[in-house]
């Protein structure tokens, strides 16, 4: 009833915070990965555009000045320009590979496998215009290196292009139509391999952040959840047995410490109130029972036997009511541990008590049923239930059975029963059935309440129902394993 199931990780504070943080981190990292990728793409494109444009510009200048510079000077010149433009010179080997001579042609014919890239085309045109390059039109395509006849021809002369891997690389081809029918100038630049592993550092980074963040979160959250868990189990224990205040250590962040301090104070307050209640009830019990005892002695001098026995009954009723009140106030405050008890023998004992008083109660044969209970209390509950049946009905029958770990004790009579709409109210303190169960027949209406409180105390239940054949049926259920295991 009260014991807590372990909280699933996803529902715990720790789990929820961690899952939310993990999700947020994942989204953030994904967005930044996309941005990084885009920036890298842009940089790469800009590098390509610059490289190819400057090949054309440099060739045009050379052509214009009619000066053939030495190769090394040209390279130095170009590298300087590249550096200035922020281009990204690649590895030495690759750079050598990428160097293709300029081609002059009468026309530029794109191949069917070419991929046109209008954005690149526009960028190249812009750079050329900036460099005052005079041109008719520009066409830029991306082409597989193995498809380009110029590159293929070149490859035969080059040692480092003997490996067939180069064929699948992409070459950016830019054709510029020069003005005044001077024909086309075609430049080629091998695209540097795409940084395929751009995701790898992002994933690695994410993992590192995850590990560090989770370690920190775990430490911080444990500081909160551990004292909260201790508090929860303490509240459970106190609810079950509010006899003694057991303060728990104030631990964790200040908010939690304050909560624990508040709980400790409340527990101490409740425990002392309950103690006061016990002292008060003890005093009431003592103060009322002594005069009752005196009265009980005095009526012995009454000569009329009938009168005397009626007086004795009244005193007995008062005593029972008083005991019920005191018990109801104390139920659940057990000093003694529950014990393994033979419930069948216990029921027989109660039935025998009624037998001794001349009340006929039928006890059905039952197997030996053993349950961990507070025997005195269960006895009291059965006594009240049977007494109720005997008082308001006839043919009281008691039966016991073991229903899957629960003892079911059924007490039924063939009396008038209880109107359906009154059944719930009958279990409330001081309730009594109307007409058929009036005050003249005695009882304070606490018997059923106490029986139910005792069932509750054991983690069981008390159910009242009207029998189809007429009469009341009380079903008293007790978990056999005891409250702690049953809950």
């Amino acid at each position, binding site marked *: 009833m009260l014991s807590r199931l372990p909280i699933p990780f996803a529902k715990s504070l720790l789990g929820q915070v961690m899952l939310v943080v993990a999700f947020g981190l994942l989204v953030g990292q994904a967005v930044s990965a996309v941005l990084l990728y885009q920036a890298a793409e842009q940089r790469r494109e800009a590098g390509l555009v610059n490289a190819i444009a400057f090949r054309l510009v440099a060739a045009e200048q050379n052509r214009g000045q009619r000066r053939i510079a030495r190769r090394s000077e040209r390279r130095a010149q170009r590298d300087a320009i590249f550096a200035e433009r922020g281009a990204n010179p690649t590895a030495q080997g690759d750079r050598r590979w990428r160097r293709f001579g300029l081609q002059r042609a009468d026309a530029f014919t794109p191949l069917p496998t070419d991929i046109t890239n209008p954005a690149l085309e526009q960028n190249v045109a812009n750079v050329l215009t900036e460099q005052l390059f005079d041109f008719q039109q520009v066409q830029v395509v991306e082409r597989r290196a193995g498809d380009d006849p110029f590159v293929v021809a070149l490859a035969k002369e080059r040692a480092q292009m003997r490996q067939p891997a180069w064929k699948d690389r992409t070459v950016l081809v830019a054709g510029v139509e020069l003005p005044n029918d001077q024909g086309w100038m075609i430049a080629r630049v091998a695209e540097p391999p795409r940084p395929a592993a751009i995701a790898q550092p992002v994933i690695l980074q994410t993992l590192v952040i995850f590990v560090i963040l989770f370690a920190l979160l775990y430490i911080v959250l444990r500081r909160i959840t551990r004292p909260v868990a201790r508090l929860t189990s303490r509240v459970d224990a106190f609810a079950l047995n509010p006899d003694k205040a057991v303060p728990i250590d104030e631990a964790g962040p200040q908010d939690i410490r304050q909560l624990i301090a508040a709980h400790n104070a409340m527990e101490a307050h409740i425990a002392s109130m309950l103690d006061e209640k016990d002292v008060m009830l003890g005093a009431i019990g003592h103060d009322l029972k002594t005069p009752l*005892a005196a009265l*009980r002695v005095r009526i012995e001098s009454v000569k009329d036997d009938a009168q005397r026995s009626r007086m004795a009954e009244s005193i007995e009723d008062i005593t029972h009511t008083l005991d019920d009140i005191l018990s109801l106030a104390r139920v659940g405050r057990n000093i003694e541990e529950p014990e*393994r*008890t033979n419930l069948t023998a216990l029921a027989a004992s109660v039935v025998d*008590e009624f037998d*001794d008083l001349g009340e006929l109660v039928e006890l059905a044969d039952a197997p030996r049923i053993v349950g961990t209970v507070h*025997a005195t209390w269960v006895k009291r509950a059965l006594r009240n239930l049977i007494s109720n049946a005997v008082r308001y009905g006839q043919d009281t029958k008691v039966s016991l059975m073991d229903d899957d770990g629960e003892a079911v004790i059924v007490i039924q009579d063939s009396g008038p029963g209880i109107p359906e709409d009154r059944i719930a109210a009958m279990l409330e303190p001081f309730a009594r059935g109307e007409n058929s169960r009036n005050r003249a027949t005695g009882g304070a209406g606490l018997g059923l309440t106490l029986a139910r409180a005792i069932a509750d105390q054991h983690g069981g239940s008390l159910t009242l129902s009207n029998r189809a054949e007429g009469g009341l049926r009380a079903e008293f259920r007790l978990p056999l394993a005891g409250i702690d295991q049953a809950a």
Partner: protein
Amino acid sequence: MTHDASVSLLLVDDEATLREPLAEYLTGQGFDVREAESAAAARTVMQDIRPDLVLLDIMMPGEDGLSLTRYLVESQNLPVILLTAKAEATDRIVGLEMGADDYVVKPFEPRELVARIRSVLRRANRPELTASDEGTVYGFEGWTLDPLKRKLTDPEGVLVAISTAEFRLLRAFLDHPREVLDRDRLLDMVQGRTAHIFDRAVDNQVSRLRRKIEPDRSNPQFILTVRGGGYRFAAQVSRLPKQAH
């Protein structure tokens, strides 16, 4: 009951409302009753006379009933019956542990009190019926009976509820194992009862007790019926030192 005339009782209770009518009633029953309103007063009375039995309220201002009980039992060797307002087992056990012979819970039936007084006196006068040491526990065939707590447990250690009459009957058997006890003798030992609660035929009580302890009721192996009237407890009985709880 003419022999009661010589029996003197000391009634110790701080509540005059109960003490006075009770003293009157007990005097009417043929006892010679002295009253005391406190433990100190009781000690003073005891300097003059030595009662046969003391009736003692547990809850009293000043020295309480329990400490007086210890004095009466240990120093004076007097039988004591406690009067208590609390029905709680712990009080009762403490009282019995202090050496009290019996107890009644207020409000008690005066006739029951008289029956208890006679029963205790009878036990005190007949050494063979004197209660065995309350600190020991009886054992038979795996069963145990703790006379102090009036607890019967079966060989599995499971508590088996028994009534006061059944307890007394079983104890009588356990005190006299393998002895034939006729109905009169059993009734004598089981008495200390009010007429209408315990005045059932011994056979009836034996039958109830059998229902609780005999594995097979139709073929009893503990409580055997002896032809010619009477019963015999057949199992071997041991006295175990009190278990620590």
